[in-house]
Protein backbone atom coordinates (compact mmCIF):
# COMPACT_ATOMS: atom_id res chain seq x y z
CA UNK A 1 0.00 0.00 0.00
CA UNK A 2 2.70 2.47 0.95
CA UNK A 3 4.53 1.74 -2.26
CA UNK A 4 1.29 2.22 -4.12
CA UNK A 5 0.85 5.62 -2.49
CA UNK A 6 4.40 6.59 -3.40
CA UNK A 7 3.88 5.45 -6.96
CA UNK A 8 0.70 7.50 -7.11
CA UNK A 9 2.66 10.51 -5.88
CA UNK A 10 5.21 9.98 -8.65
CA UNK A 11 2.37 9.68 -11.10
CA UNK A 12 0.97 12.98 -9.87
CA UNK A 13 4.33 14.63 -10.36
CA UNK A 14 4.71 13.29 -13.87
CA UNK A 15 1.22 14.22 -14.95
CA UNK A 16 1.75 17.64 -13.43
CA UNK A 17 4.92 18.25 -15.38
CA UNK A 18 3.32 16.94 -18.55
CA UNK A 19 0.32 19.18 -18.03
CA UNK A 20 2.51 22.23 -17.47
CA UNK A 21 4.30 21.46 -20.67
CA UNK A 22 1.04 21.25 -22.63
CA UNK A 23 -0.33 24.47 -21.21
CA UNK A 24 2.79 26.54 -21.77
CA UNK A 25 3.34 25.10 -25.21
CA UNK A 26 -0.20 25.76 -26.35
CA UNK A 27 -0.18 29.27 -24.97
CA UNK A 28 3.33 30.30 -25.81
CA UNK A 29 4.59 28.38 -28.79
CA UNK A 30 1.89 28.67 -31.42
CA UNK A 31 3.06 29.34 -34.93
CA UNK A 32 2.45 32.57 -36.71
CA UNK A 33 -1.21 33.13 -37.49
CA UNK A 34 -2.34 30.32 -35.22
CA UNK A 35 -4.63 32.32 -33.00
CA UNK A 36 -6.43 30.51 -30.21
CA UNK A 37 -9.63 30.28 -32.24
CA UNK A 38 -7.76 28.64 -35.09
CA UNK A 39 -6.58 25.76 -32.96
CA UNK A 40 -8.03 22.37 -33.82
CA UNK A 41 -10.47 21.13 -31.20
CA UNK A 42 -8.09 18.31 -30.35
CA UNK A 43 -5.58 20.83 -29.11
CA UNK A 44 -8.21 22.74 -27.19
CA UNK A 45 -9.30 19.54 -25.52
CA UNK A 46 -5.71 18.70 -24.60
CA UNK A 47 -5.33 22.19 -23.19
CA UNK A 48 -8.35 21.89 -20.93
CA UNK A 49 -7.27 18.41 -19.94
CA UNK A 50 -3.92 19.77 -18.87
CA UNK A 51 -5.59 22.53 -16.89
CA UNK A 52 -7.73 19.96 -15.12
CA UNK A 53 -4.69 17.85 -14.35
CA UNK A 54 -2.55 20.69 -13.09
CA UNK A 55 -5.19 21.95 -10.71
CA UNK A 56 -6.74 18.75 -9.43
CA UNK A 57 -3.87 16.30 -9.08
CA UNK A 58 -2.14 18.35 -6.35
CA UNK A 59 -5.20 17.88 -4.18
CA UNK A 60 -4.89 14.14 -4.53
CA UNK A 61 -1.23 14.49 -3.68
CA UNK A 62 -2.13 16.24 -0.42
CA UNK A 63 -4.68 13.57 0.33
CA UNK A 64 -2.12 10.85 -0.31
CA UNK A 65 0.51 12.50 1.84
CA UNK A 66 -1.94 12.68 4.71
CA UNK A 67 -2.81 9.04 4.07
CA UNK A 68 0.84 8.08 4.17
CA UNK A 69 1.21 9.88 7.50
CA UNK A 70 -1.83 8.12 8.87
CA UNK A 71 -0.44 4.77 7.87
CA UNK A 72 3.09 5.27 9.08
CA UNK A 73 3.38 8.10 11.55
CA UNK A 74 0.38 7.56 13.77
CA UNK A 75 -1.48 10.70 12.83
CA UNK A 76 -5.28 10.85 12.87
CA UNK A 77 -6.34 12.69 9.76
CA UNK A 78 -8.75 10.10 8.49
CA UNK A 79 -8.96 7.69 11.39
CA UNK A 80 -11.31 7.84 14.28
CA UNK A 81 -12.98 5.39 16.64
CA UNK A 82 -11.66 2.22 15.05
CA UNK A 83 -11.74 -1.31 16.38
CA UNK A 84 -10.30 -3.80 13.94
CA UNK A 85 -10.60 -7.44 14.90
CA UNK A 86 -10.86 -6.50 18.55
CA UNK A 87 -7.77 -4.33 18.42
CA UNK A 88 -8.55 -0.79 19.49
CA UNK A 89 -6.66 1.86 17.53
CA UNK A 90 -5.73 4.99 19.47
CA UNK A 91 -6.80 7.40 16.72
CA UNK A 92 -9.52 9.88 17.43
CA UNK A 93 -10.96 12.94 15.80
CA UNK A 94 -10.21 12.30 12.14
CA UNK A 95 -12.76 11.85 9.44
CA UNK A 96 -12.75 9.02 6.95
CA UNK A 97 -14.93 11.09 4.68
CA UNK A 98 -12.26 13.77 4.43
CA UNK A 99 -10.18 11.42 2.32
CA UNK A 100 -13.13 10.87 0.06
CA UNK A 101 -13.49 14.60 -0.37
CA UNK A 102 -9.84 15.03 -1.25
CA UNK A 103 -9.92 11.98 -3.46
CA UNK A 104 -13.01 12.99 -5.37
CA UNK A 105 -11.77 16.51 -5.78
CA UNK A 106 -9.30 14.88 -8.09
CA UNK A 107 -11.52 11.94 -8.94
CA UNK A 108 -14.19 13.87 -10.65
CA UNK A 109 -11.96 16.08 -12.84
CA UNK A 110 -10.06 12.88 -13.58
CA UNK A 111 -13.13 11.57 -15.39
CA UNK A 112 -12.91 14.55 -17.70
CA UNK A 113 -9.16 14.25 -17.95
CA UNK A 114 -9.91 10.90 -19.57
CA UNK A 115 -12.90 12.01 -21.55
CA UNK A 116 -11.97 15.45 -22.91
CA UNK A 117 -9.14 14.35 -25.22
CA UNK A 118 -11.51 11.75 -26.64
CA UNK A 119 -14.08 14.47 -27.27
CA UNK A 120 -11.49 16.60 -29.02
CA UNK A 121 -10.29 13.78 -31.24
CA UNK A 122 -13.82 12.71 -32.09
CA UNK A 123 -14.70 16.26 -33.14
CA UNK A 124 -11.70 16.36 -35.43
CA UNK A 125 -12.25 12.91 -36.90
CA UNK A 126 -15.98 13.38 -37.52
CA UNK A 127 -15.27 16.64 -39.26
CA UNK A 128 -12.50 15.26 -41.47
CA UNK A 129 -14.36 12.14 -42.47
CA UNK A 130 -17.75 13.64 -43.06
CA UNK A 131 -15.99 16.28 -45.19
CA UNK A 132 -17.79 18.99 -43.30
CA UNK A 133 -16.68 21.65 -40.86
CA UNK A 134 -17.36 20.84 -37.24
CA UNK A 135 -20.69 22.40 -36.43
CA UNK A 136 -20.55 25.25 -33.92
CA UNK A 137 -16.83 25.52 -33.24
CA UNK A 138 -17.32 28.25 -30.66
CA UNK A 139 -20.10 26.33 -28.94
CA UNK A 140 -17.83 23.29 -28.81
CA UNK A 141 -15.13 25.43 -27.22
CA UNK A 142 -17.57 26.96 -24.81
CA UNK A 143 -18.90 23.61 -23.73
CA UNK A 144 -15.38 22.25 -23.23
CA UNK A 145 -14.67 25.25 -21.05
CA UNK A 146 -17.92 24.88 -19.12
CA UNK A 147 -17.24 21.21 -18.51
CA UNK A 148 -13.76 22.07 -17.25
CA UNK A 149 -15.05 24.63 -14.77
CA UNK A 150 -17.95 22.48 -13.58
CA UNK A 151 -15.67 19.48 -13.20
CA UNK A 152 -14.03 21.22 -10.26
CA UNK A 153 -17.24 22.08 -8.51
CA UNK A 154 -19.13 18.81 -8.36
CA UNK A 155 -16.85 16.31 -6.66
CA UNK A 156 -19.19 15.41 -3.82
CA UNK A 157 -21.86 13.94 -6.09
CA UNK A 158 -19.99 10.69 -5.58
CA UNK A 159 -20.72 11.03 -1.89
CA UNK A 160 -24.45 11.65 -1.56
CA UNK A 161 -24.87 8.77 0.85
CA UNK A 162 -21.78 9.31 2.99
CA UNK A 163 -23.68 11.38 5.48
CA UNK A 164 -23.07 14.46 3.40
CA UNK A 165 -24.85 17.50 4.67
CA UNK A 166 -28.20 17.62 2.80
CA UNK A 167 -27.86 21.31 2.04
CA UNK A 168 -24.44 20.83 0.44
CA UNK A 169 -25.89 17.80 -1.30
CA UNK A 170 -28.58 19.86 -2.97
CA UNK A 171 -26.02 22.35 -4.29
CA UNK A 172 -23.99 19.49 -5.66
CA UNK A 173 -27.09 18.13 -7.40
CA UNK A 174 -27.63 21.46 -9.08
CA UNK A 175 -24.03 21.83 -10.23
CA UNK A 176 -23.82 18.22 -11.35
CA UNK A 177 -26.88 18.30 -13.51
CA UNK A 178 -25.62 21.53 -15.05
CA UNK A 179 -22.88 19.49 -16.72
CA UNK A 180 -25.53 17.81 -18.81
CA UNK A 181 -26.13 21.08 -20.68
CA UNK A 182 -22.67 21.45 -22.30
CA UNK A 183 -22.64 17.70 -22.89
CA UNK A 184 -25.95 17.94 -24.70
CA UNK A 185 -24.61 20.80 -26.82
CA UNK A 186 -21.66 18.68 -27.82
CA UNK A 187 -23.81 15.72 -28.78
CA UNK A 188 -26.17 17.80 -30.88
CA UNK A 189 -23.26 19.50 -32.59
CA UNK A 190 -21.71 16.16 -33.48
CA UNK A 191 -25.00 15.00 -34.90
CA UNK A 192 -25.28 18.15 -37.00
CA UNK A 193 -21.73 17.66 -38.19
CA UNK A 194 -22.76 14.29 -39.61
CA UNK A 195 -25.93 15.72 -41.11
CA UNK A 196 -25.64 16.23 -44.89
CA UNK A 197 -22.06 15.18 -44.86
CA UNK A 198 -20.33 12.79 -47.19
CA UNK A 199 -19.15 10.28 -44.66
CA UNK A 200 -16.20 7.94 -45.23
CA UNK A 201 -16.30 5.06 -42.80
CA UNK A 202 -12.69 4.56 -41.89
CA UNK A 203 -12.18 2.61 -38.65
CA UNK A 204 -11.51 5.95 -37.00
CA UNK A 205 -14.90 7.31 -38.13
CA UNK A 206 -16.66 4.23 -36.88
CA UNK A 207 -15.04 4.53 -33.50
CA UNK A 208 -15.95 8.21 -33.39
CA UNK A 209 -19.59 7.39 -34.14
CA UNK A 210 -19.44 4.65 -31.54
CA UNK A 211 -18.08 7.20 -29.10
CA UNK A 212 -21.02 9.49 -29.67
CA UNK A 213 -23.48 6.64 -29.25
CA UNK A 214 -21.88 5.46 -26.02
CA UNK A 215 -21.50 8.99 -24.76
CA UNK A 216 -25.23 9.50 -25.17
CA UNK A 217 -26.07 6.25 -23.41
CA UNK A 218 -23.64 6.74 -20.56
CA UNK A 219 -24.26 10.44 -20.25
CA UNK A 220 -27.99 10.02 -19.85
CA UNK A 221 -27.56 7.57 -16.99
CA UNK A 222 -25.38 10.21 -15.39
CA UNK A 223 -28.53 12.27 -15.02
CA UNK A 224 -29.93 9.49 -12.84
CA UNK A 225 -26.88 9.27 -10.63
CA UNK A 226 -26.30 12.99 -10.35
CA UNK A 227 -29.74 13.35 -8.86
CA UNK A 228 -29.28 12.63 -5.18
CA UNK A 229 -32.77 11.23 -4.72
CA UNK A 230 -32.27 8.48 -7.27
CA UNK A 231 -28.67 8.08 -6.20
CA UNK A 232 -29.85 6.94 -2.77
CA UNK A 233 -31.20 3.83 -4.45
CA UNK A 234 -28.65 3.39 -7.23
CA UNK A 235 -25.49 4.35 -5.41
CA UNK A 236 -22.86 1.61 -5.47
CA UNK A 237 -25.05 -0.72 -7.47
CA UNK A 238 -24.35 -2.29 -10.84
CA UNK A 239 -26.07 0.76 -12.35
CA UNK A 240 -23.04 2.82 -11.41
CA UNK A 241 -20.77 0.21 -12.91
CA UNK A 242 -22.72 0.33 -16.15
CA UNK A 243 -22.81 4.12 -16.19
CA UNK A 244 -19.18 4.89 -15.72
CA UNK A 245 -17.90 2.01 -17.78
CA UNK A 246 -19.96 3.16 -20.72
CA UNK A 247 -19.27 6.84 -20.47
CA UNK A 248 -15.79 6.99 -19.08
CA UNK A 249 -14.39 3.57 -19.80
CA UNK A 250 -15.64 2.39 -23.17
CA UNK A 251 -16.49 5.80 -24.63
CA UNK A 252 -13.11 7.33 -23.90
CA UNK A 253 -11.42 4.18 -25.16
CA UNK A 254 -13.41 4.55 -28.36
CA UNK A 255 -12.13 8.09 -28.62
CA UNK A 256 -8.58 6.91 -28.16
CA UNK A 257 -8.99 4.09 -30.67
CA UNK A 258 -10.41 6.57 -33.13
CA UNK A 259 -7.37 8.75 -32.52
CA UNK A 260 -4.97 5.87 -32.98
CA UNK A 261 -6.55 4.70 -36.22
CA UNK A 262 -6.65 8.25 -37.49
CA UNK A 263 -3.13 9.37 -36.64
CA UNK A 264 -1.33 6.06 -36.97
CA UNK A 265 -0.20 6.89 -40.52
CA UNK A 266 1.29 10.10 -39.16
CA UNK A 267 2.99 8.34 -36.28
CA UNK A 268 4.63 5.49 -38.14
CA UNK A 269 4.22 6.17 -41.85
CA UNK A 270 2.15 3.02 -42.22
CA UNK A 271 -1.55 2.18 -41.99
CA UNK A 272 -3.14 -0.08 -39.43
CA UNK A 273 -4.80 -3.05 -41.03
CA UNK A 274 -8.26 -1.64 -41.62
CA UNK A 275 -10.11 -4.97 -41.89
CA UNK A 276 -8.89 -5.80 -38.42
CA UNK A 277 -9.96 -2.31 -37.49
CA UNK A 278 -13.51 -2.95 -38.68
CA UNK A 279 -13.67 -6.26 -36.86
CA UNK A 280 -12.23 -4.62 -33.78
CA UNK A 281 -14.87 -1.92 -33.90
CA UNK A 282 -17.89 -4.12 -34.44
CA UNK A 283 -16.95 -6.68 -31.82
CA UNK A 284 -16.19 -3.99 -29.27
CA UNK A 285 -19.27 -1.95 -30.05
CA UNK A 286 -21.72 -4.84 -29.92
CA UNK A 287 -19.89 -6.38 -26.97
CA UNK A 288 -19.93 -3.20 -24.91
CA UNK A 289 -23.64 -2.79 -25.25
CA UNK A 290 -24.20 -6.47 -24.49
CA UNK A 291 -22.07 -6.22 -21.38
CA UNK A 292 -23.22 -2.97 -19.96
CA UNK A 293 -26.80 -2.48 -21.06
CA UNK A 294 -28.29 -5.31 -18.96
CA UNK A 295 -26.21 -4.17 -16.00
CA UNK A 296 -28.54 -1.20 -15.65
CA UNK A 297 -31.31 -3.63 -14.82
CA UNK A 298 -29.17 -5.34 -12.22
CA UNK A 299 -28.56 -1.92 -10.74
CA UNK A 300 -32.26 -1.11 -10.68
CA UNK A 301 -32.73 -4.40 -8.88
CA UNK A 302 -30.39 -3.04 -6.20
CA UNK A 303 -27.52 -5.45 -6.70
CA UNK A 304 -24.45 -3.94 -5.08
CA UNK A 305 -21.24 -3.73 -7.04
CA UNK A 306 -18.13 -5.70 -6.14
CA UNK A 307 -20.05 -8.79 -5.02
CA UNK A 308 -18.16 -11.84 -6.16
CA UNK A 309 -20.79 -14.29 -4.99
CA UNK A 310 -24.48 -13.54 -4.76
CA UNK A 311 -25.72 -16.99 -3.84
CA UNK A 312 -26.10 -16.14 -0.18
CA UNK A 313 -28.70 -13.52 -0.92
CA UNK A 314 -32.41 -13.77 -1.46
CA UNK A 315 -32.83 -10.38 -3.16
CA UNK A 316 -29.86 -10.43 -5.50
CA UNK A 317 -29.87 -13.96 -6.81
CA UNK A 318 -32.07 -13.40 -9.85
CA UNK A 319 -29.49 -12.93 -12.57
CA UNK A 320 -27.15 -15.93 -12.75
CA UNK A 321 -27.69 -16.41 -16.50
CA UNK A 322 -27.09 -12.76 -17.19
CA UNK A 323 -23.87 -12.75 -15.19
CA UNK A 324 -22.66 -15.71 -17.18
CA UNK A 325 -23.46 -14.00 -20.46
CA UNK A 326 -21.71 -10.82 -19.38
CA UNK A 327 -18.62 -12.75 -18.37
CA UNK A 328 -18.36 -14.56 -21.69
CA UNK A 329 -18.88 -11.43 -23.72
CA UNK A 330 -16.30 -9.54 -21.71
CA UNK A 331 -13.72 -12.24 -22.32
CA UNK A 332 -14.37 -12.04 -26.07
CA UNK A 333 -14.24 -8.26 -26.08
CA UNK A 334 -11.05 -8.25 -24.12
CA UNK A 335 -9.48 -10.75 -26.49
CA UNK A 336 -10.42 -8.40 -29.30
CA UNK A 337 -8.41 -5.65 -27.65
CA UNK A 338 -5.40 -7.95 -27.64
CA UNK A 339 -5.99 -8.26 -31.35
CA UNK A 340 -5.80 -4.50 -31.60
CA UNK A 341 -2.52 -4.43 -29.71
CA UNK A 342 -1.23 -7.08 -32.07
CA UNK A 343 -2.42 -5.08 -35.05
CA UNK A 344 -0.69 -2.04 -33.65
CA UNK A 345 2.66 -3.67 -33.20
CA UNK A 346 2.44 -5.65 -36.44
CA UNK A 347 1.52 -2.58 -38.46
CA UNK A 348 4.38 -0.53 -37.13
CA UNK A 349 6.73 -2.85 -38.97
CA UNK A 350 4.67 -4.56 -41.63
CA UNK A 351 1.69 -2.29 -42.28
CA UNK A 352 0.79 -0.89 -45.68
CA UNK A 353 2.94 2.09 -46.43
CA UNK A 354 1.55 5.60 -46.57
CA UNK A 355 2.11 7.14 -49.98
CA UNK A 356 0.83 10.68 -49.59
CA UNK A 357 1.51 13.18 -46.83
CA UNK A 358 -2.16 13.75 -46.30
CA UNK A 359 -4.00 10.45 -46.65
CA UNK A 360 -7.29 11.59 -45.09
CA UNK A 361 -7.41 14.94 -46.84
CA UNK A 362 -7.27 16.83 -43.56
CA UNK A 363 -6.65 20.52 -43.04
CA UNK A 364 -4.60 20.57 -39.90
CA UNK A 365 -0.90 21.32 -39.77
CA UNK A 366 0.41 17.90 -38.87
CA UNK A 367 -0.53 16.62 -42.32
CA UNK A 368 1.75 19.14 -44.00
CA UNK A 369 4.86 17.57 -42.54
CA UNK A 370 6.77 14.96 -44.51
CA UNK A 371 5.68 11.34 -44.10
CA UNK A 372 8.71 10.72 -41.94
CA UNK A 373 9.26 14.01 -40.19
CA UNK A 374 12.63 14.77 -38.76
CA UNK A 375 13.52 16.76 -35.69
CA UNK A 376 11.51 19.98 -35.55
CA UNK A 377 8.79 18.42 -37.72
CA UNK A 378 9.23 20.70 -40.74
CA UNK A 379 12.36 21.00 -42.81
CA UNK A 380 13.00 24.69 -43.13
CA UNK A 381 10.50 27.33 -42.12
CA UNK A 382 7.61 26.62 -39.80
CA UNK A 383 4.45 27.14 -41.84
CA UNK A 384 2.20 30.11 -41.23
CA UNK A 385 -1.47 29.61 -40.58
CA UNK A 386 -4.15 31.62 -42.36
CA UNK A 387 -7.46 30.06 -41.50
CA UNK A 388 -9.32 27.79 -39.06
CA UNK A 389 -8.84 24.05 -39.52
CA UNK A 390 -12.34 23.16 -40.65
CA UNK A 391 -12.70 24.51 -44.16
CA UNK A 392 -14.11 21.34 -45.70
CA UNK A 393 -16.34 21.40 -48.77
CA UNK A 394 -16.19 25.14 -48.87
CA UNK A 395 -16.79 26.90 -52.17
CA UNK A 396 -16.81 23.59 -53.99
CA UNK A 397 -13.36 22.54 -52.79
CA UNK A 398 -13.11 19.38 -50.79
CA UNK A 399 -10.64 20.70 -48.28
CA UNK A 400 -8.50 23.79 -47.83
CA UNK A 401 -5.45 23.32 -45.58
CA UNK A 402 -4.81 25.81 -42.81
CA UNK A 403 -1.63 26.97 -44.49
CA UNK A 404 -3.42 28.32 -47.53
CA UNK A 405 -4.02 32.08 -47.50
CA UNK A 406 -7.60 33.21 -47.69
CA UNK A 407 -8.53 33.77 -51.33
CA UNK A 408 -9.98 37.02 -52.56
CA UNK A 409 -13.35 35.70 -53.62
CA UNK A 410 -13.75 33.27 -50.80
CA UNK A 411 -17.06 33.27 -48.98
CA UNK A 412 -17.03 34.06 -45.28
CA UNK A 413 -18.49 31.76 -42.75
Amino acid at each position, binding site marked *: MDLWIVSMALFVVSSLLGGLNYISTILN*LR*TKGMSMTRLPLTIWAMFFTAVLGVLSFPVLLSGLILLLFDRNLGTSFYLSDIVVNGEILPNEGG*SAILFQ*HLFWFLGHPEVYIILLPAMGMVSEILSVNSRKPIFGYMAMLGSLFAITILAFLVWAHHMFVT*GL*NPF*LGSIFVLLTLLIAVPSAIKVFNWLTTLWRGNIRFTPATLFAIGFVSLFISGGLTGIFLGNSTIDIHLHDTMFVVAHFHIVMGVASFFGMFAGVYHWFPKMFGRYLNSTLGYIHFWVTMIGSYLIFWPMHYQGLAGIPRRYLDKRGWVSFNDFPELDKMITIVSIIVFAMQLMFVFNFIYSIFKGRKVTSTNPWGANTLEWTTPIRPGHGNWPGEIPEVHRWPYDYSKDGREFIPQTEPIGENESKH
Partner: protein
Amino acid sequence: MEHPAFEEVSFHHHTDDAEFKRRVKKTTILLSVITIIELAIGLFIYTLHKSDVNRDFLILGFKGLVCILTLAKAYYIVSVFMHLGDEIRNMIMTIVVPLMLFIWFIFAFIYEGNSYKNLRNTYDLHFKETTMPKKHGNAETHEVKPAEKSGKE
Protein backbone atom coordinates in the same frame (compact mmCIF):
# COMPACT_ATOMS: atom_id res chain seq x y z
CA MET B 1 16.32 23.74 -29.86
CA GLU B 2 15.70 27.45 -29.58
CA HIS B 3 12.28 28.68 -28.68
CA PRO B 4 10.72 30.56 -31.55
CA ALA B 5 8.80 32.78 -29.16
CA PHE B 6 11.82 33.58 -27.13
CA GLU B 7 13.28 36.56 -28.92
CA GLU B 8 9.89 38.14 -29.09
CA VAL B 9 9.67 38.56 -25.36
CA SER B 10 10.28 42.16 -24.49
CA PHE B 11 11.51 42.52 -20.95
CA HIS B 12 9.72 45.20 -19.16
CA HIS B 13 11.75 45.82 -16.06
CA HIS B 14 13.38 48.93 -17.36
CA THR B 15 12.01 51.10 -14.62
CA ASP B 16 14.75 53.15 -13.13
CA ASP B 17 16.70 51.92 -10.17
CA ALA B 18 15.67 54.43 -7.56
CA GLU B 19 12.01 54.04 -8.35
CA PHE B 20 12.28 50.30 -8.02
CA LYS B 21 14.19 50.44 -4.74
CA ARG B 22 11.59 52.82 -3.38
CA ARG B 23 8.79 50.43 -4.25
CA VAL B 24 10.52 47.46 -2.67
CA LYS B 25 11.21 49.47 0.44
CA LYS B 26 7.61 50.64 0.63
CA THR B 27 6.28 47.12 0.26
CA THR B 28 8.67 45.74 2.86
CA ILE B 29 7.56 48.32 5.37
CA LEU B 30 3.92 47.66 4.53
CA LEU B 31 4.34 43.91 5.02
CA SER B 32 6.08 44.43 8.32
CA VAL B 33 3.41 46.76 9.56
CA ILE B 34 0.64 44.37 8.60
CA THR B 35 2.45 41.52 10.33
CA ILE B 36 2.82 43.57 13.48
CA ILE B 37 -0.86 44.48 13.43
CA GLU B 38 -1.70 40.81 13.00
CA LEU B 39 0.44 39.86 15.95
CA ALA B 40 -1.17 42.54 18.04
CA ILE B 41 -4.60 41.21 17.17
CA GLY B 42 -3.41 37.70 17.98
CA LEU B 43 -2.31 38.80 21.42
CA PHE B 44 -5.51 40.72 21.92
CA ILE B 45 -7.52 37.59 21.14
CA TYR B 46 -5.39 35.84 23.75
CA THR B 47 -6.36 38.34 26.41
CA LEU B 48 -9.99 38.09 25.36
CA HIS B 49 -9.77 34.33 25.81
CA LYS B 50 -8.32 34.75 29.24
CA SER B 51 -11.08 36.96 30.47
CA ASP B 52 -14.23 35.32 31.76
CA VAL B 53 -16.63 37.34 29.71
CA ASN B 54 -18.05 35.56 26.71
CA ARG B 55 -16.91 37.47 23.67
CA ASP B 56 -17.18 34.88 20.92
CA PHE B 57 -18.53 37.34 18.45
CA LEU B 58 -15.75 39.87 18.97
CA ILE B 59 -13.13 37.16 18.65
CA LEU B 60 -14.66 35.97 15.44
CA GLY B 61 -14.63 39.50 14.10
CA PHE B 62 -10.96 39.88 14.90
CA LYS B 63 -10.18 36.56 13.30
CA GLY B 64 -11.96 37.71 10.19
CA LEU B 65 -9.90 40.89 10.26
CA VAL B 66 -6.68 38.88 10.48
CA CYS B 67 -7.78 36.86 7.46
CA ILE B 68 -8.36 40.02 5.46
CA LEU B 69 -4.99 41.42 6.49
CA THR B 70 -3.36 38.16 5.41
CA LEU B 71 -5.01 38.41 2.03
CA ALA B 72 -3.66 41.94 1.73
CA LYS B 73 -0.19 40.65 2.55
CA ALA B 74 -0.51 37.93 -0.04
CA TYR B 75 -1.60 40.52 -2.57
CA TYR B 76 1.50 42.63 -1.98
CA ILE B 77 3.88 39.70 -2.13
CA VAL B 78 2.38 38.43 -5.36
CA SER B 79 1.95 41.71 -7.10
CA VAL B 80 5.20 43.45 -6.14
CA PHE B 81 7.73 40.83 -5.19
CA MET B 82 6.64 38.35 -7.79
CA HIS B 83 6.01 41.14 -10.32
CA LEU B 84 2.62 39.77 -11.21
CA GLY B 85 1.22 43.27 -11.04
CA ASP B 86 3.57 44.25 -13.86
CA GLU B 87 2.46 41.49 -16.18
CA ILE B 88 -0.14 41.67 -18.88
CA ARG B 89 -3.73 41.62 -17.71
CA ASN B 90 -4.49 38.33 -19.39
CA MET B 91 -1.61 36.70 -17.57
CA ILE B 92 -2.89 37.99 -14.24
CA MET B 93 -6.30 36.58 -15.06
CA THR B 94 -4.97 33.12 -15.86
CA ILE B 95 -3.44 33.03 -12.41
CA VAL B 96 -6.19 34.67 -10.41
CA VAL B 97 -9.29 33.14 -11.96
CA PRO B 98 -8.46 29.49 -11.18
CA LEU B 99 -7.80 30.51 -7.60
CA MET B 100 -11.45 31.48 -7.40
CA LEU B 101 -12.17 27.77 -7.22
CA PHE B 102 -10.95 27.97 -3.66
CA ILE B 103 -14.05 29.86 -2.62
CA TRP B 104 -16.37 26.93 -3.18
CA PHE B 105 -13.68 24.48 -2.13
CA ILE B 106 -13.24 26.16 1.26
CA PHE B 107 -16.92 26.68 1.81
CA ALA B 108 -17.82 23.08 1.08
CA PHE B 109 -15.04 21.55 3.16
CA ILE B 110 -15.62 23.71 6.19
CA TYR B 111 -19.35 23.29 6.00
CA GLU B 112 -18.78 19.55 5.88
CA GLY B 113 -16.44 19.69 8.86
CA ASN B 114 -19.05 21.56 10.79
CA SER B 115 -21.65 19.03 9.78
CA TYR B 116 -19.47 16.21 11.17
CA LYS B 117 -19.30 18.08 14.44
CA ASN B 118 -23.06 18.39 14.59
CA LEU B 119 -23.55 14.72 13.80
CA ARG B 120 -21.09 13.68 16.46
CA ASN B 121 -22.55 16.00 19.05
CA THR B 122 -26.06 14.75 18.33
CA TYR B 123 -25.45 11.04 18.12
CA ASP B 124 -22.26 10.53 20.12
CA LEU B 125 -22.97 12.05 23.50
CA HIS B 126 -19.76 10.73 24.94
CA PHE B 127 -17.84 12.69 22.34
CA LYS B 128 -19.80 15.81 23.14
CA GLU B 129 -19.23 15.49 26.87
CA THR B 130 -15.54 14.78 26.73
CA THR B 131 -14.58 17.38 24.17
CA MET B 132 -16.96 20.25 24.77
CA PRO B 133 -15.22 22.90 26.84
CA LYS B 134 -16.88 23.50 30.16
CA LYS B 135 -19.03 26.54 30.43
CA HIS B 136 -17.49 28.18 33.48
CA GLY B 137 -14.62 30.55 32.97
CA ASN B 138 -11.46 28.77 32.04
CA ALA B 139 -8.89 30.25 29.77
CA GLU B 140 -9.16 29.54 26.05
CA THR B 141 -12.45 27.71 26.24
CA HIS B 142 -14.38 29.73 23.73
CA GLU B 143 -12.90 28.10 20.71
CA VAL B 144 -16.18 26.72 19.37
CA LYS B 145 -17.04 28.58 16.25
CA PRO B 146 -20.37 29.13 14.58
CA ALA B 147 -21.19 27.40 11.35
CA GLU B 148 -20.14 29.99 8.81
CA LYS B 149 -16.76 29.91 7.19
CA SER B 150 -14.19 32.29 8.48
CA GLY B 151 -12.66 33.12 5.13
CA LYS B 152 -9.52 31.21 5.84
CA GLU B 153 -6.87 31.16 3.12
